[in-house]
């Protein structure tokens, strides 16, 4: 449960696995090495309680299915219901109010029950169940209806509205805004929460279903240790003890029963070895238009006199600024008049007059080229990973074909499946190593990291090449052995790389060229930068 504990054990157990790895570097490992590879086996997810070996980048987590989630809630509600002698509805509201922290609820309730009830929007238990009433002379403040015999409703605060308005209000909240556990009284400034029993008599059956769905969701959303699996149509939730403040030390990657692997910290797809903060920055940088500006500053020059931006698209070095008519040399940025008779070939590079202008240009070019270096490699692996999805589907066909042509059994062609899985996970990792490297300041660790990156990349490209062989070739047993070896090697190189990065991250040994903990600079404080920057 406590992330620090997990974390420490993960780090300490790391030592006993490294020597093991280096011994096996000779690629002799066959199927035996597969204990490293937890990806192709989705079942491993739930057996994580006591894994035989723990690696530094591995964290403990649990996957819950919808029925588990429901049961946990019911258990908690029943327990509070019995201990505190309050109705189940009220127990549920109190638990939601306390974000399902049962201990704190019971403690606070024992201490000052009235205060707790009021804070949770329950007030004092009123007499009798909620009901619709007809009150003479009633005027609804929402629709201004004053008709005789108008059915109206109010919760314990006494703010009374006609039943139509109440229903409109609730359907808006439930259907459109996705609220459930904390729908408040419609009155301005009234914080009283509408309880489940009141909702039962107010909402239509189809809405009730949605309402209960949403209530179930709040259980997961309220608990910091629970998160929904973000895969489309997956209804599972994952429990993990890694806290937000640890995210600069660990990249908590979890894998759902549906086999989707994602980061528990930020819900994005597996982005090991890069920590969440770097990922956020990197994605923003890649999406931003700021790179356009970068391009401009690297591919254009400014008129030394009036600073107009100029892109040279041909012609000679004798530039005449269209705006201010200043004449200068494109090569050295110095005055054209100083060039004397050596027109059209500038050999005055060391001349002082153009030095400063060139310095500024050079700096911007270096930073752009550095970014592009990492971006191109990142994007390449991203694309290749996508192509690997295609390959995966082709693999399935290949496997069937192979069974027919070579007479191999189903189990004998599984090595292709493993290879394809390995390709995908390794490329995913490689992709993020480049985003990671972009933010890395140079030191000895960086050297080791780049070596690891190079090894993994070469192995992956090698495997990728073998993998694309025609079926006839694949059927030959020597290629099969080669692919199996290479698959194991790729997986092992990935483990080594992730071990190294995770270990150094935990120890705080990486030096980044950006602040890791700082909050991202965002747009105006009064407006959400996401929605503003959308075009």
């Amino acid at each position: 449960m406590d992330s620090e504990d997990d974390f420490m054990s993960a780090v300490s157990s790391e030592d006993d696995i490294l020597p093991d790895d280096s011994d096996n570097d000779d690629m002799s490992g066959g199927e035996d090495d597969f204990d490293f590879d937890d990806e192709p086996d989705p079942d491993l997810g739930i057996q994580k309680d006591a894994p035989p070996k723990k690696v530094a980048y591995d964290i403990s987590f649990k996957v819950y299915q919808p029925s588990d989630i429901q049961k946990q809630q019911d258990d908690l509600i029943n327990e509070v219901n019995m201990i505190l002698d309050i109705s189940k509805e009220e127990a549920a509201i109190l638990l939601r109010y306390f974000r399902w922290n049962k201990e704190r609820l019971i403690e606070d309730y024992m201490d000052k029950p009235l205060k707790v009830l009021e804070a949770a929007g329950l007030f004092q238990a009123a007499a009798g169940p909620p009901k619709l009433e007809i009150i003479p002379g009633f005027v609804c403040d929402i629709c201004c209806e004053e008709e005789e015999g108008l059915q109206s409703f109010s919760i314990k605060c006494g703010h009374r509205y006609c039943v139509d308005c109440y229903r409109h209000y609730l359907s808006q909240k439930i259907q459109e805004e996705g609220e459930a556990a904390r729908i408040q009284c419609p009155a301005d400034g009234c914080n009283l929460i509408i309880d489940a029993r009141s909702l039962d008599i107010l909402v239509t059956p189809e809405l009730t279903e949605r309402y209960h769905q949403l209530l179930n969701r709040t259980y997961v959303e309220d608990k910091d240790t629970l998160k929904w699996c973000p895969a489309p149509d997956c209804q599972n939730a994952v429990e993990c003890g890694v806290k937000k403040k640890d995210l600069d030390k660990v990249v908590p990657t979890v894998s759902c029963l549906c086999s989707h692997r994602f980061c528990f910290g930020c819900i994005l797809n597996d982005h090991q070895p890069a920590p969440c903060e770097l990922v956020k920055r990197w994605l923003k940088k890649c999406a931003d238009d700021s790179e356009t500006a970068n391009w401009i500053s690297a591919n254009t020059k400014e008129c030394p006199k009036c600073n107009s931006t100029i892109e040279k698209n041909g012609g000679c070095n004798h530039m005449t600024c269209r705006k201010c008519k200043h004449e200068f040399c494109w090569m050295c940025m110095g005055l054209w008049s100083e060039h004397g008779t050596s027109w059209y070939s500038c050999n005055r590079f060391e001349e002082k007059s153009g030095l400063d202008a060139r310095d500024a240009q050079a700096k911007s070019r270096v930073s752009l080229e550095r970014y592009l270096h990492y971006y191109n490699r990142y994007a390449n692996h991203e694309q290749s990973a996508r192509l690997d999805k295609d390959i995966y589907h082709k693999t399935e066909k290949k496997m069937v074909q192979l069974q027919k042509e070579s007479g191999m059994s189903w189990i004998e062609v599984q090595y292709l499946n493993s290879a394809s899985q390995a390709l995908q996970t390794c490329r995913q990792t490689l992709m993020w190593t480049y985003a990671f490297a972009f933010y890395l300041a140079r030191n000895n660790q960086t050297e080791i990291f780049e070596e690891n990156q190079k090894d993994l990349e070469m192995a992956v490209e090698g495997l990728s090449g073998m993998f694309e062989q025609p079926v006839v070739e694949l059927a030959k047993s020597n290629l099969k052995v080669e692919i199996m070896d290479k698959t194991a090697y790729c997986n092992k190189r990935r483990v080594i790389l992730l071990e190294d990065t995770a270990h150094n991250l935990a120890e705080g040994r990486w030096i980044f060229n950006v602040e890791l903990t700082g909050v991202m600079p965002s747009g105006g404080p009064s407006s959400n930068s996401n929605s503003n920057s959308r075009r």
Partner: protein
Amino acid sequence: MSAQGQFATKRLGKELQKINNSLPPGIVLVSADNFEEWLLDIKVLDTNPLYTNQTYRLKFKFGASYPIEPPEVVFVKLPDRPIPIHPHIYSNGIICLDLLGQQGWSPVQNVESVCMSLQSMLTGNTKDERPPGDEEFVRANRLRPKDIDFYYHDNNV
């Protein structure tokens, strides 16, 4: 749609009746030709130097589920109707006020109460400034006010 539309129409009809009878000082109905869009003028009544002798034009747009959903309210710029300076009002007239968002809105609110809230929001202001990032926001924003996810960071201004 029609049922909800009727819902809004009925309520707006009642509101209009009341507005035609009386409005608080400093609030004037300019036009209410239909139940989709109304224009009102507001003035700041006290002697706040930022807003003296100025009148501001407000545009209300009502959806079919008004008053369950908040109306869309913006300041409109005209030759004699500037956009009031305020750290929560962008120079294109978009207002960042929790009352006008889904979270802060209550169906008990109405056109009159919104006008009064805006009056008091101006009255209480001492800062002669636009929201941070105003220029960028005004240039880049293509969203309607109700689709903007404002983050209400400060209820004191």
